[in-house]
């Protein structure tokens, strides 16, 4: 049925080609290639019809993400991918809407939209390629740059506390909060798949190293520090524990950085609660008849 949400076993036999053949713009070695591979694997394995997938991005290196895909996509404005994506989803609840962008885009200029769309629990999957730097503008500090990070805009070291994306998402009301690392694309693919299958606002913060402008947070740097929540006895249904894990990196001075599923909760989505959408997707709803319009006019007599 075209109006159903995806399930893991649907159409798995019939693999569709989600690749458009368009080459992304990324530097050789960029973490975003792993994200592309992981997302490609996730959508293929879930087996969604590709015409039902809309990938919405902002502006930045990582926002080139929709182009290698042969799905629908919108490459929108810097920081505004979430409202665009939310608009698509609210208008047509049958679609699988995936947001892709970077840390400057989503945690800097667009952070307000993260909070509010998490709060709305709109059924979106938001992948943030977090490289702790502004890449496309050639290397300025980002909202997740660590204190002391020397960048073009902070040559003497950043003095601002880095944002804590998972903690922000959990407290704002996101119902699926995960973190992945480009050094482990298979693990990432599972987390993305989980996010797409989850009904509600899902965010996957991905450590996606910038090999050109970030000499601090490299693949090696992450490899020495990350560990998986799945193998450490973490219970993702426990919100307080999820918050504790979110602060672990900061509290251990970045010695221990958890990746995996921090938090997951079953909660009614925006579409499930919205009055209008009880009549089906907005795009399928009929235009009013003259009689219906005249009934409304009676309010003004």
């Amino acid at each position, binding site marked *: 049925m075209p109006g159903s949400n995806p399930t893991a076993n649907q159409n798995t036999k019939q693999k569709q080609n989600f690749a458009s053949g368009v080459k992304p713009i990324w530097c050789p070695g960029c973490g975003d290639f792993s994200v592309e591979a992981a997302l490609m694997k996730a959508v293929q394995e879930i087996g969604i019809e590709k015409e039902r997938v809309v990938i919405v991005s902002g502006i930045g290196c990582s926002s080139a993400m929709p182009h290698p895909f042969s799905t629908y996509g919108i490459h929108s404005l810097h920081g505004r991918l979430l409202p665009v994506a939310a608009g698509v989803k*609210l208008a047509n609840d049958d679609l699988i809407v995936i947001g892709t962008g970077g840390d400057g885009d989503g945690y800097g200029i667009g952070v307000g939209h993260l909070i509010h769309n998490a709060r709305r629990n709109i059924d979106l999957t938001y992948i943030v390629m977090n490289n702790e730097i502004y890449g496309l503008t050639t290397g300025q500090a980002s909202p997740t740059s660590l204190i002391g990070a020397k960048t073009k805009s902070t040559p003497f070291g950043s003095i601002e506390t880095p944002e804590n994306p998972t903690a922000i998402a959990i407290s704002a009301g996101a119902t699926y909060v995960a973190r992945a690392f480009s050094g482990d694309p298979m693990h990432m693919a599972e987390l993305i798949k989980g996010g797409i299958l989850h009904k509600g606002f899902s965010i996957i913060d991905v450590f996606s190293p910038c090999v050109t402008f970030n000499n601090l947070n490299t693949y090696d740097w992450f490899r020495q520090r990350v560990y998986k929540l799945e193998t450490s006895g973490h219970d993702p249904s426990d919100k307080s524990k999820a918050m504790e894990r979110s602060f672990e990196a900061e509290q251990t001075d970045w010695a221990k950085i958890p990746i995996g599923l921090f938090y997951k909760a079953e909660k009614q989505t925006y579409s499930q609660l919205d009055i209008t959408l009880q009549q089906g997707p907005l795009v399928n709803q009929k235009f009013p008849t003259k009689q219906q319009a*005249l009934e409304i006019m009676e309010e003004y007599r």
Partner: protein
Amino acid sequence: MASVSVRIVGANGDGVESSGALLIKVATRNGLNVFGYRGYQSIIRGGHVWYQIRISDSKLYSHGEGIDILIALNQDSITYQKSHLNPNAIVIYDPSKIKVDELDATKFRLVKLPMLDIAIEVSGDPIMRNTVAIGAALKFIGIDISVFNEVIKSMFGRKGEKVVESNIKAASRGYDSEGVSMVFNIKGDGKQRYALDGNTALSIGAYASGCKFYAAYPMTPASSILHWFAAHENKGVMPKQTEDEIAAINMTIGAASAGARAMCGTSGGGFSLMVEGLGLAGMLETPIVVVESQRTGPSTGLPTKTEQADLLFVMHASQGEFPRIVVAPRSIEESFKIASEAFNLADRYQCPVLIMMDLYLSEHIESIDGFDFDSITIDRGKIVTQKTDEGRFKRYLITEDGISPRSFPGARGLEFIAGSDEHNEYGDLISDAFAGIDSSIEIRNKMHEKRMRKMDTMLKNESIFVPHIENENADYFLVTFGSTTIPAREAVEILKSKGLNFGIISFNYILPLDKEKTKAMLHGKRMINVEANFTGQLAKVIMMNTGIEIKESILKYDGEAFTGESIASEALKIVKK
């Protein structure tokens, strides 16, 4: 034509607005015409608020210059409104609360009405005092009390018999009070009319033409559009209050991209935030409708007062160039009509359509005979739903008319990526790896020319991009856009009574403009430009398009609405110069 202007004055919280709404309902039920306008401030309790309701046996074009009946609910009502009283005005006041020493009893009819005592006596509720005053006003106007009783029954029937009864009692006590008598005797034609404001008319027009999604952040004077959509959420429309206007326009673009007819609305401040999104709609060629209801600027300005100073801003907002349509409705009826047309235009030309309202048009209430729902047609433009040929879908196909086929997510084989970067026919970017190489330069030119060609196409295919002339053979013409056209119509009548033959040249569709036709229409005419701003923005647009300079202007930027009288007296001065 006979008319009477009733002004109800008090503080916020005194029930001024609801009393005004009641009077409007009673008058329209009685087959009368009404025109209502509120004066209020950015304050929730206190302040000095008024609601002027002009009632007439003929169609009205402004709320009237002065006050014929003042319902004074506090002392300030006398102090601040006495200069607005017409000769022989009736002043209804409660002697237990208000002193009228400052009024000359020989010039005005001062009517002592113990509103509060009567209210307590009939209902025990002091709030009923306004109803007592309304009852008295009805007698002065010449509206039979039985009409009031019927309205109360239909309005408050749900609230129970007691509420209905005490309202009826309170009003009839006012109606029959000592010193209250029929003065104006304005008679209706028995035709029941609708009474609504511009934002309501616009909302109904959008609804009737299939607008399914409306996103907004609260901002006066656009908020009532959001309220309308919220109140009708169970009628198949989705209101979305967003975190800011940036989200509002971007969500609207998302919803429109998915195939819904979508609109967002705000005032100038919020529109400033929407500007980047407007450019996105232009580049993605996404049809959206944006409402900009102007208020007095700059910055926060006078949030509850009117102005028309955002015209040039809206016409030119955003970096770069892209097709857009800018239209300013010239009446309540036209707010409906233009809202319903806007979605067809947006869909046909795949561009943003901007509707310029202002506080005066958004909020003033008029009685109308109805809207022409039969005139509504739906044209979704070049939409493809089925794949017909091999190869990738060219969403941005270069065409002669500049309009490319559009598909919606869900349609198999018609997938594409819409890009805010410059792109080729498929939507692939040419901005990153290939910008500046010869083939990309060619694509950029072709794509930009394709988009811009839509302006030529709309000018060629639509007959709407011209001004409108009323009284073609006049000696002088008032030149207006949008809401100012309403009081200008009254001004023409006033000037006529003074022996001057005036006409109106009014603009609704302002961008694009058919230069040749406009030039021909304006050529050789003696014109006075009438606008609610300081710089004469419409005159600049006319100059830019036709080379014709309108030398005389009536400009107003005090935040108050034009009235026919105020335009006529200024026009008279200019003509006599």
